[in-house]
C-alpha cells in the first residue's frame, strides 16, 4: 500500500484528487479476487470522475465476487512531478496499490488528445509502454471507448481493445482473465490474448499485420493468428433493461465537471447528422422504460444525496416519453430539493416548453447547436433543423424569460463557402433581432462558439480532407470581422488542436512512433490549452518521419483501404458512401426511427432492433 507523504499533499493543488475514501467506493481484499482491474481515465480526476462509462464498468466488475475494479486518474503535472521525485508509482484510489500489480489496466479512450496521457500513466506505473516489451509479470493493458473504433495509432501500446458497449463484454473479459489465471496462465500473455481474441468485440492488434502501398496508403490489415477474425464487430446490448446501471456511483469530495446524477434515457441517435461519430457508434436507438428510469432515479438519489438529476443521452429531446418522464421526475423529487436538468436540447419550441418546466426548480442556460450558418450547409450535414426552427425556439426562450443563448457552430465542413461563414454571423444577428422583437429592447446575450470540423472514422465524412490550419484561421478571422455587435460574444477553438485531432482520428499504426516521440519531449494533457504545445508535436512528426497532412488534409478515395476497415460499428461502408454522396448534393436523409429505414445495416447486421417505448405504446 502506498502512502503519500503529507509534504507532497500539502504542496499540490486539490490534494483530495489523490486521497480516496469517497462514499460508495468499493474496497475489496486483493487476495480474494481472481481478476483485479485498474480502471484508468487518461485525464485529471474531475474529468474522469464525470464519465458515465467508467461508472458502469466499475459497477459491473465489482458486482462479480471474483473480480475487483479500482480507479486511477492522470495525476495533474504538479503531482506527477512530486511522484517522480519521491519515487511514488501510479496507484489506485481504493487499495492504494501500484497499478503495475493489477491483472488488467483498462483505459477509456474519449478523445484523441488524451493519448499521450496514456503513455505517461503507463510510464508512471513502471509498465513498458509497448505491448511487445511487456513480460509475464505485467498487467494486460486494454482499452475501449469511441476512439477504439480507430485503434491503430495506439496499436503498439494496447494489448487488446474492446469495441462497443461494455456491459456484457467486460463480464466476458473478467471471466476469461479469472479462468486463465486459475488454469495456471496457459500460454502466458500470448495464450491469454488468443483466448481474448475469441471474445466478440475484442481486437488484438498484435494479431494483425499492416501493409502499405508505395504511395504510403494502406494496402491491407490482415489477421496473422487463427483466433483473430478478419473484421472485429462492436458489442451492442440488445435491451438496456437487461443490464445493470450504476445506481451507487462513487461520490467525490471535490466538485467534478458533471457533479450530479446522470440518468441515461437511451442510447443511440437516429437523426443521422453526417459529421457525428457517436451517432454511428451507438446505433441503434434503445430506450429505457419510464418506470425503469424512475426507479433508477430514486435509487440514485437515495445512494448519493445529489440535488440534481441530469437526463443524458446523445439527444435527450428525442426520448419518446420525455414530457412524461420530466413531469414524473419533478413530481417525485420536488419535495426533496432535487431538480431535473436537460443538458442537450433540440432546436424546437417543444424543448423550450420542457426547459421551462424544469426551470421550476433551477435556472440554467440554453444552448443550441445549429452547427452551420446556412440552410444549404445544414442540409449537407443532415442537421435537420431550419432557420424557422431556431427562430421559434429562441423566440419561445426569450418569451419564457431567458435573455441569453449559446449557439454552437462548426467551420471547415464539406462544401463550405464564405457565404456559409457569413451565415453564422447573420444567424446570430437574427437571434438578437428576435430578442428585440419579443422584448421591445436590446440586451440579448448571444454567445457563439465555433469549433473546427474534424472528420471522424465511421462517419459519412470519413473520406473528407480537413481544411488546413491556415484556411481555418482565415475563416475564424473572417467571422471575427463580422461580429461587430457587442451583444454577441464570439469564441473559437484552436485550429492546431483540431488538426492534431484529425491526424489521430484517422491515423494508422505509423503514428505510434509520433506519440512516443511527443511523449518523450514532454507532451501531456494536450486537451488542456495551458499544456498544449504544437511545436513539440511538429518536432515529433519530424523525428518519426511522418507527414501529418497525409492524415488530416488528404481527401481519401472511395477505394482506399482505411485504417479502421477491419473494425466495424455495424454500419455498412456502402451506407456511409451513399450518405457522403447525398451530402454533396445537399440531399437530406430522414430519421430512420420514424421515417423509412435508411438501411445503414446496423439492425440487420447486429440482430438488434430500435426500442422506442413511445412508438410502441
Amino acid at each position, binding site marked *: 500500500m502506498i502512502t503519500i507523504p503529507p509534504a507532497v499533499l500539502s504542496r499540490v493543488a486539490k490534494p483530495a484528487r489523490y486521497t480516496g475514501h469517497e462514499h460508495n467506493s468499493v474496497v475489496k481484499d486483493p487476495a480474494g479476487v481472481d481478476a483485479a482491474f485498474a480502471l484508468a481515465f487518461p485525464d485529471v480526476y474531475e474529468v474522469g470522475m464525470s464519465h458515465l462509462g467508467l461508472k458502469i464498468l466499475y459497477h459491473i466488475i465489482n458486482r462479480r465476487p471474483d473480480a475487483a475494479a479500482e480507479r486511477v486518474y492522470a495525476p495533474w503535472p504538479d503531482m506527477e512531478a512530486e511522484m517522480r521525485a519521491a519515487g511514488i508509482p501510479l496507484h489506485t484510489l481504493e487499495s492504494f496499490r501500484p497499478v503495475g500489480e493489477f491483472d488488467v489496466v483498462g483505459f477509456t479512450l474519449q478523445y484523441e488528445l488524451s493519448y499521450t496521457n496514456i503513455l505517461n500513466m503507463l510510464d508512471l506505473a513502471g509498465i513498458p509502454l509497448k505491448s511487445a516489451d511487456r513480460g509475464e509479470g505485467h498487467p494486460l493493458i486494454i482499452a475501449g471507448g469511441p476512439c477504439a473504433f480507430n485503434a491503430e495509432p495506439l496499436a503498439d501500446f494496447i494489448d487488446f481493445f474492446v469495441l462497443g458497449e461494455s456491459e456484457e463484454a467486460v463480464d466476458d473479459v473478467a471471466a476469461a482473465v479469472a479462468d486463465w489465471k486459475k488454469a495456471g496462465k496457459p500460454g502466458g500473455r500470448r495464450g491469454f490474448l488468443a483466448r481474448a481474441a475469441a471474445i466478440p468485440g475484442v481486437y488484438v492488434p498484435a494479431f494483425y499485420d499492416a501493409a502499405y502501398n508505395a504511395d504510403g496508403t494502406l494496402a491491407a490489415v490482415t489477421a496473422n493468428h487463427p483466433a483473430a477474425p478478419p473484421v472485429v464487430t462492436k458489442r451492442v446490448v440488445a435491451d438496456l433493461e437487461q443490464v445493470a446501471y450504476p445506481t451507487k456511483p462513487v461520490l467525490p*469530495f471535490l466538485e467534478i465537471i458533471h457533479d450530479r446524477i446522470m440518468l441515461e434515457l437511451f442510447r443511440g441517435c437516429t437523426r443521422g447528422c453526417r459529421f457525428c461519430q457517436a451517432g454511428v457508434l451507438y446505433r441503434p436507438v434503445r430506450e429505457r422504460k419510464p418506470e425503469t428510469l424512475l426507479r433508477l432515479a430514486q435509487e440514485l438519489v437515495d445512494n448519493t444525496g445529489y440535488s440534481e438529476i441530469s437526463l443524458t443521452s446523445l439527444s435527450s429531446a428525442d426520448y419518446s416519453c420525455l414530457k412524461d418522464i420530466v413531469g414524473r421526475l419533478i413530481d417525485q423529487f420536488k419535495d426533496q430539493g432535487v431538480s431535473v436538468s436537460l443538458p442537450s436540447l433540440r432546436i424546437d419550441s417543444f424543448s423550450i416548453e420542457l426547459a421551462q418546466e424544469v426551470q421550476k426548480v433551477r435556472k440554467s442556460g440554453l444552448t443550441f447547436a445549429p452547427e452551420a450558418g446556412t440552410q444549404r450547409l445544414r442540409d449537407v450535414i443532415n442537421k435537420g433543423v431550419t432557420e424557422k426552427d431556431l427562430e421559434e425556439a429562441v423566440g419561445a426562450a426569450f418569451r419564457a424569460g431567458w435573455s441569453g443563448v449559446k449557439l454552437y457552430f462548426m467551420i471547415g465542413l464539406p462544401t463550405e463557402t464564405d457565404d456559409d461563414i457569413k451565415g453564422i454571423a447573420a444567424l446570430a444577428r437574427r437571434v438578437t433581432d428576435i430578442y428585440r422583437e419579443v422584448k421591445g429592447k436590446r440586451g440579448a446575450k448571444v454567445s457563439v462558439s465555433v469549433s473546427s470540423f474534424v472528420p471522424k472514422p465511421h462517419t459519412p465524412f470519413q473520406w473528407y480532407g480537413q481544411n488546413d490550419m491556415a484556411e481555418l484561421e482565415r475563416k475564424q478571422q473572417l467571422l471575427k470581422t463580422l461580429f461587430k455587435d457587442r451583444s454577441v460574444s464570439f469564441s473559437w477553438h484552436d485550429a492546431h488542436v483540431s488538426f492534431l485531432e484529425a491526424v489521430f482520428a484517422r491515423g494508422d499504426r505509423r503514428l505510434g512512433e509520433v506519440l512516443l516521440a511527443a511523449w518523450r519531449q514532454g507532451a501531456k494533457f494536450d486537451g488542456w490549452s495551458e499544456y498544449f504545445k504544437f511545436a513539440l508535436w511538429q518536432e515529433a512528426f519530424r523525428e518519426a518521419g511522418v507527414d501529418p497532412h497525409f492524415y488530416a488534409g488528404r481527401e481519401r478515395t472511395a477505394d482506399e483501404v482505411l485504417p479502421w476497415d477491419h473494425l466495424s460499428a455495424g454500419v455498412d461502408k456502402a451506407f456511409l458512401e451513399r450518405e457522403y454522396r447525398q451530402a454533396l448534393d445537399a440531399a437530406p436523409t430522414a430519421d430512420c426511427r420514424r421515417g423509412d429505414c435508411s438501411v445503414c445495416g446496423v439492425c440487420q447486421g447486429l440482430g438488434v432492433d430500435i426500442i422506442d417505448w413511445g412508438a410502441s405504446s
Partner: protein
Amino acid sequence: MSVKYRLAITKGEAVRYVSHLDYMRSIERAVRRTKLPAAYSEGFNPHMKIAFASALSVGVASEAEYMDIELTGDVDPAAMGEALASQLPPGIAVGRFRQIPATGYPALMAVVNLAAYRIRLPLPAGTAGDAIEAIGRFNAAAVVTYIKENPKGKKEIDVKTYVREVAATPVADGLELAVEVRITPTGSIKPTEVIKVLVEKFGLPADPDTALVTRTGLFVADGNSRISPLDI
C-alpha cells in the same frame, strides 16, 4: 415547525485534504441521504440550512468541529444521530449534540473566538534544541509583524494579536506543538502561517510543508474561561 440542532463533528484523517467547501457539501449530501427533514433556503438555488463555526484549511484535520442544522419537523434526537452516523463519509463522525432554540440563539460563527491546534512537526535529527530555542524567542517577542497574502491582496498583521505563545514538546522525530489562535471579527491567522513565521523570522529548522495540523478544540473564550459552543 422548525427545529435546530448543534452537533460536534470531526474531520478525520480520511478527509484531512478535503477543502472546507467540499467538506460542507459532503455533509449536505449525507444529510440528504438520511432523509431527515432538512430545511432549505428559498430561491432558485435552495441551500440546506447548515452552518459551521470556522473554516478549516485543506490539510488540517479536526477533533472538534461544530455545525448547526435546521430541520423542518421534529425528529427523535437518537434517531437523527444514528441516521447521520450511517451516512457520513469516513472521517466525519458525530459526537455530542443537543437541540438549540430555533431563533434568537447566537450563531456559531459569531461566538467561537478561539481555536486550539496540535501540530506534529518533523525536524532534521539533532535540531530539536535549536527548534525549542527559536520557539522561545517567538514567545518572548512582544510584536511579530507578518505580511499576510491572499488573492485579495497583502495585509500587515501582528501575529501576537492572535497567538501569544507556542508550547513545544519533543517527540520521536521532532516536536509536538500546541497553539491557541484567537479568532476575531477582523481576522485570524492560520496555524500553517504560524509555522511559516517561526521558520522565516525565528529560524525554526523545519520544513513547513511537513507540518501535520489537527484542530483540537473550538471555544467561546472569555479571559481564562473556555467553554464549548455546545455549552453556551
